[in-house]
């Protein structure tokens, strides 16, 4: 039971934080298919920073985890500038721009990992071995029956993500910036006429998205898998897009969807273990999240209300 809770949460939260990033971008009117590439690039920068910082701080420094988070967020948001430039400044088609970012991210991170490994170790491996960050258990809460598992063996990431998610919710719904951001996604001309800067708002929204995706990416690399390698591109970004679509572009509902994804996955996984299936069969089981995503999309897509102006290229002179 505890394992289900622990695994479920550690799968759900990176998805969630990336999905929030997607929500920021899409609600500002920019289609965001680049989550996959952004999380990968964030993870790459984070992992690389961990590898490099270890030389100075040693392998067991408690600061590594925080350095990784900051580096991952910076990496993701820097890389997202490409998407922002293409969509906001160059008025490129946003779907294509997303694919450009994903393609570039995969190619660049794989290439740079080889190059950097070549420099550091003399061996052109495409992996950064960074290990798993340390965990902790919340004293009292973890004693609660059934749900106590949620508070056992937590990664520091999980707390950080929850705090940031809460802040993101506040920023989107309660502040001036959020009001303007959401206006961009519904009718950018309204903001323009009211004296707001549509391009700037969208640009910032995309960079926030990049930072959040980067955080999600480094969480996966540093907590779930323990390495950075091309295997990080296994579809987390697309799953979180699916999550935000069921979540109807709203943060609380998306949270519920991510938890559902996470726990559904860990429940099936544990079941398979219990049944003692041979390892080949895990491949078959691994299609479940994707099949589930498709099925859910079939049921939910029609009833959703995406932001009205999402994907439209904002042109001041058009009325």
């Amino acid at each position, binding site marked *: 039971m505890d394992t289900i809770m622990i695994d479920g949460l550690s799968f759900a939260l990176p998805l969630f934080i990336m999905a929030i990033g997607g929500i920021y971008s899409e609600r500002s009117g920019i289609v965001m298919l680049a989550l996959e590439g952004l999380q990968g690039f964030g993870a790459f920068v984070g992992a690389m920073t961990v590898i490099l910082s270890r030389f100075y701080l040693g392998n067991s420094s408690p600061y590594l985890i925080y350095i990784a988070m900051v580096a991952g967020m910076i990496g993701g948001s820097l890389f997202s500038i490409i998407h922002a430039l293409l969509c906001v400044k160059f008025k*490129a088609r946003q779907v*294509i721009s997303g694919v450009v970012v994903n393609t570039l991210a995969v190619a660049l991170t794989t290439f740079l990992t080889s190059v950097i490994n070549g420099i550091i170790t003399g061996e052109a491996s495409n992996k950064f071995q960074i290990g798993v960050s340390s965990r902790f258990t919340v004293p009292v809460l973890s004693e609660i029956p059934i749900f106590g598992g949620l508070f056992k063996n937590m990664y520091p990431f999980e707390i950080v993500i929850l705090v940031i998610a809460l802040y993101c919710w506040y920023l989107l719904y309660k502040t001036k910036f959020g009001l303007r951001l959401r206006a961009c996604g519904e009718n950018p001309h309204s903001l323009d006429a009211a004296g707001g800067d549509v391009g700037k708002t969208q640009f910032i929204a995309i960079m926030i998205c990049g930072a959040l995706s980067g955080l999600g990416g480094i969480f996966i690399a540093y907590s779930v898998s323990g390495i950075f390698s091309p295997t990080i591109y296994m579809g987390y970004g697309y799953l979180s897009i*699916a999550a935000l679509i069921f979540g109807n572009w709203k943060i609380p509902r998306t949270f519920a969807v991510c938890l559902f994804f996470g726990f559904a996955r860990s429940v099936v996984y544990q079941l398979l273990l219990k049944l003692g299936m041979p390892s080949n069969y895990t491949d078959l089981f691994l299609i479940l999240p994707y099949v589930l995503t498709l099925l859910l999309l079939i049921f939910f897509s029609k009833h959703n209300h995406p932001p009205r102006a999402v994907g439209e290229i904002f042109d001041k002179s058009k009325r």
Partner: protein
Amino acid sequence: MNAKKERVPGNGLGGRIINALDDDRLSQFAIPVVSIILTILAAAALLLVLGKNPATAMTGFLRGSGFMMKPIYGGGQSMLTDFLSFLGILAPMLLAALGIIIGMKSGMFNIGMAGQMLAAGFIATVFVGYSGLNAYLAKPLVILLGILTGGLIGAIIGFLKYRFNIHEVVSSIMFNYIISYIVAFFINTYYKDIITRSSRVCSAASRLSITGVTWGTSKLTLPLGIILALAGVFLVKFLLDRTVVGFEMKAVGLNRDCAKYAGVNVGKSIILAMALSGVFGGLAGVTYYVGYFNSIVPKELASLGYDSIAVALLGNISPIGAIFSSILITIFQKGSIYMSSTVGVPKEIASVITGILLLFSACGTYMRYLARRQRERLADKAKKEGVQ
């Protein structure tokens, strides 16, 4: 409202480039050419940063693809071997790009090329590659299975888009993963070659290439896929330019609402376009897995499926343009192994170059806009000077 095009005064190179970029007819050539030049400059800069000689690297790409002589060749190898091998991998690249083009013309982005390729390659391998049928039966059957498998998956994606409004990018990515895992499961469970850890090789009779031909001292593999690909180019061009079905697809792609208003059956058109796109994906898959290679590595999607997007965009989403852009991108991809071994840069740089190429191609509209603004500025200046 149609502005009379004013030429930029002066005949300088800059002026000519600006004119070409903003010309209705010329821009479709000028934009890709500028993208390529910018990409090569960026790649050269990257190589310089790594302390490598860009010129050596570039010739390395050409040598590895059979466009230039290598200094030494191994036994049974020659420039012709390399070039035929280049054509062998060019075929699936071009076929996949054709699939992307059909999709894009109808407003659909078939990013699931790689999955459709894998599925088609796998089905053809299992049902024909392992069957022991003779070549005259096996080869057409491989092609047929490729068409059917790819077409079916494409049609499903189109159906999901039309009926349930599921974005084709999301659904086809989901299909990519599903296909990849299912194929991996079957290969690992039933068809695994213990030594190579990939699927067992398919029979020579079923392969879409003729192996073991000797010419002089070199052993050659004649790729049949390239014929398929070139035929495909003209077929797609004819379809899009000259047929009622193509007219409807383009109408749907440019303005779905108007197409519906005009009486086009939008759902049918979308599904058909995605099915055709998938057909070309399937053909790319069989020429790739049952032609160029003859086995499948489990859990690996061909990066060629994604590179074909760059080919389509760089070729200005036109079938003829795709011939040129696929040659260029294949030179980088195919030549990267040889380049890597001689220059000592990881071969993944080929993907980086493709990515940069894609990046610049996506900026095409902006380049045109910049050129127009620059031209207006120059024209204004000329006018003012004329007045004084």
